[in-house]
């Protein structure tokens, strides 16, 4: 134990002194020019005490002094893990589906609203996963295609009075076209350069939405977008269909759920197809993929366009739910959030992304009271995640799954 202590005490001391150096300017320097030390020292000593307990536990664990606690705990965890892996995947999927289906029945209006937002972000996250997780291209302007989809529906609906289901394919298609237009010149870049160029193009699209007054009504946004309409059979005066605008949030939830499920199935199918394999080869080594006969440019463009389609569809749903679109909703921060969801959940893993979205959308809603500290906690969580689970909450089971499935 003394050995372990000797190994880490220096780092611990430096870390705590670093924290003091960080805290004092924040807490001890006041705008009127006075300098105080009391609050800083108080906060710091609390943190010091707390972290010292963690430090001691760490040292004891490393020195095997905690065996009597660690062993049973790890045994229980191991048992749970084997028990959960004994259940086949479809049981999990079924359980989650059943839960998703009955959820609006017991969640209130607010809960359903949050859930819709989660479902739309799942669709976004899965779309971005195609670009980032499968094809390995860092896209920082992804939210622009969400915006294109949302505006397409909003404009078609308010100007021409077209219904949601007519506009939905247009939203997807237009986002796809926007993806191709942006992708064509940018996808010649690689790595960091691509990230910066996509960031630029994302901002350009947002600025167009913001400044094209005649078309998008600029920063005022478009009001009065209709919600999803459905045709229901009516039996008065013979058999006809009548068009209803959906007012109930619960019904909207089910449509959003359908979208998320379709997106998940779509991405799953893509992942295990010939196209998915080509994307993965590009992610792994672009030059080698080219030498093996993969048309890298076309496949990269395809990945970009596919991602944009998912975003465009989600965007149409977003506009229909909000009944209002404005450029405010499509800032860079949103792109970063979606990227965080993908990275936090685990790139390339569909359950991971779903969990990542829930973690980043639903949890902040649950902890509304701590709103002021939300971003602080958010940042800390991301750092801790990257330290302890760099591959994400549920890492993609990449290696060998496909080949094994083929045999089984």
């Amino acid at each position: 134990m003394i050995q372990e202590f000797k190994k880490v005490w220096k780092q611990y001391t430096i870390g705590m002194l670093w924290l003091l150096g960080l805290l004092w300017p924040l807490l001890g320097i006041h705008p009127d020019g006075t300098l105080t030390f009391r609050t800083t020292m108080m906060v710091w000593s609390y943190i010091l005490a707390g972290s010292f307990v963690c430090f001691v536990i760490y040292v004891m664990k490393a020195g095997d002094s905690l065996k009597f606690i660690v062993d049973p705990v790890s045994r229980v965890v191991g048992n749970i893990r084997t028990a959960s892996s004994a259940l086949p995947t479809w049981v999990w999927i079924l359980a989650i589906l059943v839960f998703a289906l009955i959820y609006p029945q017991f969640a209130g209006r607010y809960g359903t609203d949050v859930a819709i937002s989660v479902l739309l972000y799942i669709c976004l996250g899965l779309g971005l996963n195609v670009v980032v997780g499968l094809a390995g291209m860092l896209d920082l302007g992804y939210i622009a295609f969400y915006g294109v989809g949302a505006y397409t529906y909003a404009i078609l609906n308010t100007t021409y009075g077209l219904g949601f289901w007519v506009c939905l394919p247009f939203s997807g298609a237009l986002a796809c076209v926007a993806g191709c237009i942006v992708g064509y010149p940018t996808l010649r870049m690689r790595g960091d350069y691509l990230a910066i160029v996509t960031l630029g193009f994302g901002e350009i699209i947002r600025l167009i939405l913001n400044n094209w007054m005649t078309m998008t009504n600029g920063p005022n946004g478009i009001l009065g977008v209709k919600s999803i309409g459905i045709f229901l059979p009516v039996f008065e005066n013979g058999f006809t269909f009548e068009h209803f605008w959906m007012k109930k949030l619960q019904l909207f939830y089910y449509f959003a759920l359908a979208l998320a499920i379709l997106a998940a199935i779509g991405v799953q199918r893509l992942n295990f197809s010939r196209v998915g394999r080509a994307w993965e080869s590009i992610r792994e080594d672009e030059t080698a993929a080219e030498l093996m006969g993969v048309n890298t440019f076309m496949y990269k463009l395809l990945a970009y366009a596919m991602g944009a389609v998912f975003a465009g569809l989600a965007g149409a749903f977003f506009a229909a739910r909000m009944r209002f679109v404005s450029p405010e909703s499509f800032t860079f921060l949103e792109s970063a959030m979606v990227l965080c969801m993908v990275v936090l959940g685990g790139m390339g893993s569909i359950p991971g992304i779903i969990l990542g979205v829930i973690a980043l959308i639903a949890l902040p809603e649950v902890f509304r009271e701590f709103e002021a500290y939300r971003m602080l906690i958010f940042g800390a969580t991301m750092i801790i995640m990257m330290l302890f689970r760099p591959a994400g909450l549920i890492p993609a089971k990449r290696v060998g799954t496909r080949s094994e499935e083929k045999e089984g």
Partner: protein
Amino acid sequence: MTTQPILELKNVHSGYGSIKALKGVSLKVMPGEIVAIIGANGAGKSTTLMTICGIVHAEIGEVYYHGKLINKVSAEKLPTMGLCQVPEGRRIFPRLSVEENLILGAFYRNDNDQINKDIQQAYDLFPILGERSRQAGGTLSGGEQQMLAIARALMTKPKLLLLDEPSLGLAPIIVQQIFDIISRINREDNVTVLLVEQNANLALQAANRGYVIETGEITMEDKADTLIKDPKIREAYLGE
């Protein structure tokens, strides 16, 4: 000889921006041959192969494959024409399994039955790959990765195989094994091989003919046995 060369470079200049790596390279590869290009670091060996494959574009000069000009043919079309490269440093797909790496080699092909047969054949040729077919490519040792890279290239059914430094960073015993396999592929499957090597001794032993490249120019061309006996070569490349 009256037969048409499978690959011919005529006065090829290419480079990276303002850096000119090749200053007029001309060479010929006849069907069924093993040809070695030897040279020191930075002489332009890899650039020659990359120019043939269209990853680097020739600024001046022509590259002919089966008598057809392929300067403007994009890189991903060449495997369909039977020209495939094993790039320098292996460049396998590290997070994909060995089997998936091989399947990607057959990317342009649609004949699934034949692809499965070819994968089996690759496992016969390199039994170690068969044992590790489920393992991620990146977890293989250097020699195994080189074997995988060669096997992956063979999945494209090449008529002409370009090999860039197959001995790089490998133990001598593995290098010998890999060169044996290269000769075997050449003999049994009738694959023409163009080989780029720093290990001149080894390359010239395996090859029929050799070219010596120095600062982007071919300075010598002869039968491999003649080159290996040439005192200048022995001094410059074989350390004598």
